[in-house]
């Protein structure tokens, strides 16, 4: 078990204006599950891209099996036995499983042989997959299995997994971990990238912690508390969000009331909403969990006004608004933060000032007789940047020039600083670092305290458990009845989210 598989030695990689990795060294042994832990922008992605041959280091060296290792491209890395499962899947929805796997291979065998191989590998590792099913019909967890099986077919010595659990239910996570442990027992090393500390404690043998491109510590996760690891990762002491007792606003009607909402998805391969019913009072946070692709995007569209429904299906303080467009809802106090930042919540090539105007025009009265008050918009954008600690050279930069986490802070700030009555957020902390996530959660709670009704849709259970008063889950476009968050167990939450989506526990053959 102590034989060294991969050694990284003093690797440095700089991009214009930022050093992504500075003198990073660590080693992975055969069969070891090694965690790479760090905030967003800490340099995890750059590091694994170098190992996978997507990026070349400026200096430093790598060695695989004691031999110098410098893959020029991913195919070279794959030939050396390094495989990677990306956070975002690269699958074609219109093709079936076997066809997708074949597309990633240099010399794919005949389809029938390949299908047999897929079935064999997937049953061996407890990842049941039907090679003839179309990927567009698979759940996110099943799609991940396709990616994993695709890697396993190459018989890898090192498997890199980038944030693999963000799309899984707790039960699916358990099953994935069993598969990974089985692989590890067979001698495959796993480089596991995550910021979810409890998972790392449950799974990993060793951890390397990165902060601002440098290795700031190594530890054996089982022996260290999650809190200590988080503080090493952030370099500061974290305070969990504080919440005070809820006020009773004594309203006759709920701030947001959704009754029997059904709507066809406007998104290709999307999930239609089926008979969704819930209500949120002022000062209350409703958390909506669910694995990606179960109707979260559609629910946000239906609440923001981008997807219209029958008037009575959505009500605000008792008045029907299901058929009103986004800006009419904003006038009533609605704000919405979609999950997809570039292209939906923001226009990538427009400046932060223009992007501030995009959703703030109505509530911040940034227009006069149809003419835009740019100086007022700019002042407000600067306020958001300052208040939400958005790291940017200025408000004139294009939205796409910001890192994911910084843009998320800006976009959440843009919505929450509009004195909202009803807040709908999809994936509030997606891709932001631990400190920023804590800050965003606190801001959400503060808005609720100010009297806003808040709906948080998230795949991150930590988000939901920390902020929500009541908890519901989306599964294939249907919403479970909401239950008080207090006292819910992770098992119960998992079952609300649809259990294990038919997964089996790994059984080694």
């Amino acid at each position, binding site marked *: 078990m102590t034989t060294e598989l991969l050694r990284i030695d003093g690797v440095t990689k700089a991009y214009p204006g930022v050093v992504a990795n500075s003198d990073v060294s660590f080693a992975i042994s055969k069969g070891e599950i090694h965690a790479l832990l760090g905030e967003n922008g800490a340099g995890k992605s750059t590091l694994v891209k170098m190992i996978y041959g997507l990026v070349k280091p400026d200096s430093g060296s790598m060695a695989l099996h004691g031999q110098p290792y410098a893959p020029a491209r991913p195919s070279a890395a794959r030939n050396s036995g390094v495989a990677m499962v990306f956070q975002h899947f690269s699958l074609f929805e219109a093709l079936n499983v076997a066809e997708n796997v074949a597309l990633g291979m240099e010399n794919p065998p005949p389809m029938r042989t390949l299908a047999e191989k897929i079935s064999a590998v997937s049953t061996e590792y407890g990842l049941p997959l039907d090679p003839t099913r179309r990927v567009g019909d698979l759940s996110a967890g099943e799609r991940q299995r396709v990616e994993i099986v695709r890697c396993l077919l190459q018989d890898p010595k090192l498997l890199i997994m980038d944030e693999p659990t963000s799309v899984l239910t707790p039960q699916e996570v358990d099953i994935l971990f069993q598969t990974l442990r089985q692989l590890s027992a067979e001698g495959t090393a796993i480089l596991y990238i995550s910021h979810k500390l409890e998972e790392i404690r449950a799974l990993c043998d060793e951890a390397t912690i990165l902060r601002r491109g440098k290795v700031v510590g190594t530890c054996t996760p089982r022996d260290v508390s999650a809190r200590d690891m988080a503080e090493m990762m952030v370099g500061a002491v974290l305070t969990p969000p504080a919440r005070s007792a809820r006020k009773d606003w004594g309203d006759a009607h709920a701030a947001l009331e959704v009754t029997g909402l059904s709507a066809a998805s406007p998104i290709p391969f999307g999930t239609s909403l089926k008979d969704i019913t819930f209500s949120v009072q002022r000062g209350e946070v409703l958390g909506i969990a669910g694995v990606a692709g179960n109707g979260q995007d559609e629910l946000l569209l239906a609440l923001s006004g981008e997807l219209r429904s029958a008037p009575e299906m959505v009500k605000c303080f008792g008045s029907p608004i299901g058929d009103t467009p986004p800006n009419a809802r904003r006038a009533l106090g609605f704000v919405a933060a979609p999950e997809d930042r570039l292209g939906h919540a923001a226009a990538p090539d*427009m400046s932060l000032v223009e992007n501030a105007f995009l959703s703030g025009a109505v509530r911040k009265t940034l227009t006069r007789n149809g003419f835009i008050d740019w100086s007022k918009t700019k002042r407000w954008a600067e306020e958001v940047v300052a208040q939400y600690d958005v790291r940017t050279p200025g408000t004139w930069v294009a939205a796409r020039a910001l890192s994911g986490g910084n843009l998320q802070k800006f976009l959440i700030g843009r919505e929450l600083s509009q004195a909202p009555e009803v807040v709908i957020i999809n994936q509030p902390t997606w891709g932001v670092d631990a400190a920023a996530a804590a800050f965003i959660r606190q801001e959400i709670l503060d808005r609720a305290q100010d009297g806003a009704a808040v709906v948080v849709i998230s795949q991150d259970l930590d988000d939901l458990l920390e902020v929500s008063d009541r908890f519901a889950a989306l599964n294939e476009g249907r919403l479970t009845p909401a239950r008080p968050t207090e006292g819910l167990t992770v098992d119960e939450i998992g079952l609300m989210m649809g259990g294990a989506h038919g997964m089996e526990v790994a059984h080694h053959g």
Partner: protein
Amino acid sequence: MFVLEKRPSPSQFWTYATPVLAVILTMIAGGAMFALLGKDPFIAIRTIFWDPLFGEFAFYLRGQLLVKAGPLILIAVGLSLGFRAGIWNIGAEGQYIIGAIFGAGVGLAVFPTETRWIFPVMIVAGAFGGWLWAMIPAILKTRFNTNEILVSLMLVYVAQTILSKAATGFLRNPQGMGFPGSRNFSTYPAARNVELIQESGMHWGVVAAFIAVIAAYVLLQRHMLGFQIKLAGQAPRAARFAGVQPTRLVVLCMGISGALAGLAGMFEVSGPAGQISIDFASGYGFTAIIVAFLGRLNPLGILLAGLVMALTYVGGEMASTNLNLPSAAIQAFQGMLLFFLLAVDLLSNYRIRLLNGRAV
């Protein structure tokens, strides 16, 4: 070897430098083409770009410049709004023709009444005609999701058929001794689009073009609608999130571009062209598409691009008569301009990095 690297933000410098670079590259490649045709490339380029402004006949040709640039700019400004929003009105030529027929029709209907209201009413009629013609693809798109590129383009040919019917039939000059073509507006002062300053080429259409440039500039920089147009073109989903109604935008953009093209046609028929004739359509509606892109879909850029394009027209005509260049060579030359413009456009969003070298 080199690679292309996406810039974090679009380069301000290259946004303005690419049109200039495109003109220079066109001169080089065009010069090479003229050399291959056996002409002296320097004389050819000089004839096209220099002589109309400062040569022997410049006093006359400078006026021609505004006459040609006016309709190009007027149409291109309208088109650029739609293009920015991702709405592709390719049929400005047809809207130009229908605008001319409507405008001329109103004027000719009341011939020979002399009142100062005739010309303003003709302006309104011309704009209305262009708008009406543009509404056909707009409504078909919003109602039945047809492709506005195809429909607006096809309607150009319909408009041309109507034009020849007008010239030989319902608008034919009753005193024209059977020749095709309407009465000439030069003989009808009240309905005439006069040259405002002698020999300058400045007529009401040019004034309208300048007004359109300024209005479009203000619209895009300061007005909500301009913002929505830009947003819809750059990020359609973000536009819906911002409350932009795509159908309303289609109708508005098609309407504006159609009305401006119609205006251009009306000013042309009552001024420089003088009459509705079979060969009235001279391709302004198509060339304006090049002008719109050459000007980077920016109103001020279009103003300059319209003047440059007019220069290649006027100069090109000179070159083909003086140097015996085939007119196809001139068209190829104008085509090169668009080609290079689109090609070097890449530089504003990407940088070229030489492998083992520094970024450019």
